[in-house]
C-alpha cells in the first residue's frame, strides 16, 4: 500500500481526501498557494508545501511545482481531487514518468472521454443510448442542412466546451445563420478549438448521472444514480440520490448497460456518466467525467461506501471488494453546495468568515474547507462547504435539510443559503416535479 499521498487540490475536496487517507493510516501532503498558508487543508495535512502565489496557474495548476513537492516529500501517489489538474492527461503522464501513482484513470482514458464528440461516438459504439446529434459542422450552410435534418430546436455545442459554456438553443435556420460565426469565434477564444456540432434539444430534461468504479482487475461497479437537475446556468447547486424519476427497473437496466460498456473499455478509477432524461423517460448519454465529482457524497451515503477510499485502493492495484450484485440505494440523500456568493446576483463574496457554525446532529454530514476566522480568497471556486443529509425517505431528507440550513450560521460573507431555502420550500421540488430549468424558472 502507498504510505504517503500528495493532494493536488485545496478546499473541501482536499480535506475530503485527507480524511480518507488518515482513516487508512496513509500520510498526507498538502500543497498550497501563498494565500492558502493558513487554509484548512494546509493545517490538517501531515505535511504542507507552498508551491506558488495565489494565482492558480502558478500554483495549483503548475505541474512542475506539484511534482517537485511530491519529490521533496517522498510521496508515493497524487490525488488530483476535482477541477484544477484532475482531467489533465499530461499531468497524469508526468506523474507516471516521475514514479508517482496518479489516483485516477489512465491518461488515454482521460483523453478518450475528455473530448465530447469523441466521447459520444465511443459511448454509442459501446451500446449506450446517445442523444441524436451531428458530426462536426463545416460551415454555416452545412450547419443549416444538418440542423434541418435533425429537426429544430437544436442545441449548438462547442466540441471543446464544458460546464454548460458555449451552447446555443436554435429554433430556425435564420437563427443558425445569425449565430454560427459568432459561436465559432467564441469557442476558439474560450476553448482554443472552434469545432461545433448540433444535438437534439430537449426542452425540459432532467440531469441524471451514474457513478461507476473500475479496478485494475477488470471489475466494474455501477453505484446508482444522482439527480442533479437543480442547476443555475449549468452549474449544479443541489443534488440528491436516488432520483425520483427513475424506477427500480430503469435503474437496473441502465446499470447493466453501463457495466457492460465500461467493462469493454476497462475503465479504471471513479467516473461519472451524465445523462439527460427526457419527458418520455428516455435516458441519453451526455458525457463522461473521468474523476471524482463534487456531489459524490450523496452516493456514498445511500450506498454506504467511501468513494475516495475506493479510488485510492484501486490506484494501489487492489481489487474492488464490493458485492457482485448491484447495490441498492438505502434511504435518500441530498447535498446543498454552500457557495460564498450573493444569493440573488450570484456575485462571488470572498472575505473573512467572522462566524461559522455548521449544522450537526443525526444524519447530517458536513464537508467544508473553511473555518471561522479564516478567509475565502477571491482566486478560487466559491464552494466553501457541502451540507449533506441522509434520511430514510425523501420527505424526511427534505425536512432534515431544511432543519440543517436553519441552524447554519455563516457570518462575514454572503452565501447562497437563502437560495437553498427557497428551493427546498418550493412545492414542485417537494413533489419531485422539476427539470434542469427549475432554477431559472424559480429565479424568473
Amino acid at each position, binding site marked *: 500500500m502507498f504510505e504517503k499521498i500528495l493532494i493536488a487540490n485545496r478546499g473541501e475536496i482536499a480535506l475530503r481526501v485527507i480524511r480518507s487517507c488518515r482513516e487508512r493510516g496513509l500520510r498526507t501532503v498538502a500543497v498550497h498557494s501563498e494565500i492558502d498558508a493558513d487554509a484548512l487543508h494546509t493545517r490538517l495535512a501531515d505535511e504542507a508545501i*507552498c508551491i506558488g502565489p495565489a494565482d492558480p496557474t502558478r500554483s495549483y495548476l503548475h505541474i512542475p511545482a506539484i511534482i517537485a513537492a511530491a519529490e521533496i516529500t517522498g510521496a508515493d501517489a497524487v490525488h488530483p481531487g476535482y477541477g484544477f489538474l484532475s482531467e489533465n492527461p499530461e499531468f497524469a503522464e508526468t506523474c507516471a514518468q516521475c514514479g508517482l501513482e496518479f489516483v485516477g484513470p489512465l491518461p488515454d482514458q482521460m483523453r478518450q472521454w475528455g473530448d465530447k464528440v469523441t466521447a459520444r461516438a465511443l459511448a454509442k459504439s459501446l451500446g449506450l443510448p446517445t442523444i441524436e446529434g451531428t458530426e462536426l459542422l463545416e460551415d454555416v450552410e452545412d450547419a443549416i442542412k444538418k440542423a434541418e435534418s435533425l429537426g429544430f430546436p437544436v442545441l449548438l455545442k462547442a466540441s471543446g466546451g464544458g460546464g454548460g459554456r458555449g451552447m446555443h438553443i436554435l429554433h430556425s435556420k435564420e437563427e443558425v445563420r445569425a449565430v454560427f460565426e459568432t459561436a465559432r469565434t467564441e469557442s476558439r477564444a474560450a476553448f482554443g478549438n472552434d469545432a461545433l456540432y448540433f444535438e437534439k434539444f430537449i426542452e425540459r430534461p432532467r440531469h441524471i448521472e451514474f457513478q461507476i468504479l473500475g479496478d485494475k482487475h477488470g471489475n466494474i461497479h455501477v453505484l446508482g444514480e444522482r439527480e442533479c437537475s437543480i442547476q443555475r446556468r449549468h452549474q449544479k447547486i443541489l443534488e440528491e440520490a436516488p432520483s425520483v424519476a427513475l424506477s427500480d427497473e430503469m435503474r437496473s437496466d441502465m446499470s447493466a448497460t453501463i457495466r457492460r460498456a465500461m467493462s469493454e473499455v476497462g475503465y479504471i478509477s471513479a467516473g461519472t456518466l451524465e445523462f439527460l432524461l427526457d419527458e418520455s423517460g428516455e435516458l441519453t448519454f451526455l458525457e463522461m467525467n473521468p474523476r471524482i465529482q463534487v456531489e459524490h457524497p450523496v452516493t456514498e451515503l445511500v450506498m454506504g461506501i467511501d468513494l475516495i477510499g475506493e479510488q485510492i485502493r484501486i490506484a494501489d492495484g487492489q481489487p474492488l471488494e464490493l458485492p457482485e450484485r448491484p447495490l441498492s440505494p438505502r434511504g435518500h440523500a441530498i447535498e446543498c453546495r454552500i457557495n460564498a456568493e450573493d444569493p440573488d446576483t450570484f456575485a462571488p463574496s470572498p472575505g473573512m468568515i467572522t462566524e461559522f457554525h455548521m449544522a450537526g446532529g443525526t444524519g447530517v454530514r458536513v464537508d467544508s474547507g473553511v473555518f471561522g476566522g479564516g478567509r475565502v480568497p477571491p482566486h478560487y471556486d466559491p464552494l466553501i462547504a457541502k451540507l449533506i443529509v441522509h434520511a430514510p425517505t425523501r420527505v424526511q431528507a427534505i425536512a432534515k435539510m431544511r432543519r440543517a440550513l436553519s441552524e447554519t450560521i455563516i457570518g462575514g460573507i454572503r452565501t447562497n443559503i437563502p437560495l437553498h431555502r427557497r428551493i427546498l420550500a418550493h412545492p414542485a421540488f417537494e413533489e419531485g416535479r422539476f427539470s434542469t430549468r427549475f432554477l431559472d424558472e424559480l429565479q424568473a
Partner: protein
Amino acid sequence: MKLDLDQLRELIRLLDESNLTEIEVEHDDDRIRVRRDPAPLVGAQATQSVATAGAASSEHPSDVPAPVDENGTYVTTPFVGTFYRAPSPDGEPFVEVGDSIVPGQVLCIVEAMKLMNEIEAEVAGTIVEILGDDGKPVEYGDRLFRIEIS
C-alpha cells in the same frame, strides 16, 4: 476605539518585517487594515535550466521593487525543490558569505523534476547570510540569501 498613530506605525512596521502582504485587525465595527503589494522575488525570472538575464519573464512577473528592510534584501525561491549551493556534488559553491555579487550572477540551484533551475541575483551587493541548507528541500517563497545592496 481610538487608535493612535504609533500603533498604526507599529502595524506597518510589522507588515514590513514579515512575508505577509496584508494585516487586518478587526475590532467590533472597527477594523484596521494595512496592505501592500505581493513581495517580489529576487531572481524570480530565472527559468528552467537556462536562466534569462535581466527583466522579469511573463511567467513570473516581478516588476515591483525588491523587499528591503533594515536587514537587507532577500533572495527567495520561485521553485519548489532541492536547494544546491554548488553546480555538482564536488563543485565549489556558487557564492559564499562575504562575496560581492552582480545582477545575473548565479547564486544557487533549485532542482525539481531532475531539472536544475539556476537562481540569479537581480541586484548588486554582498552576500551577508545563506539561509538555505545545501541538499535540503525548499518551498516556494523560502528565503535563500540575505544580501546587502551596494
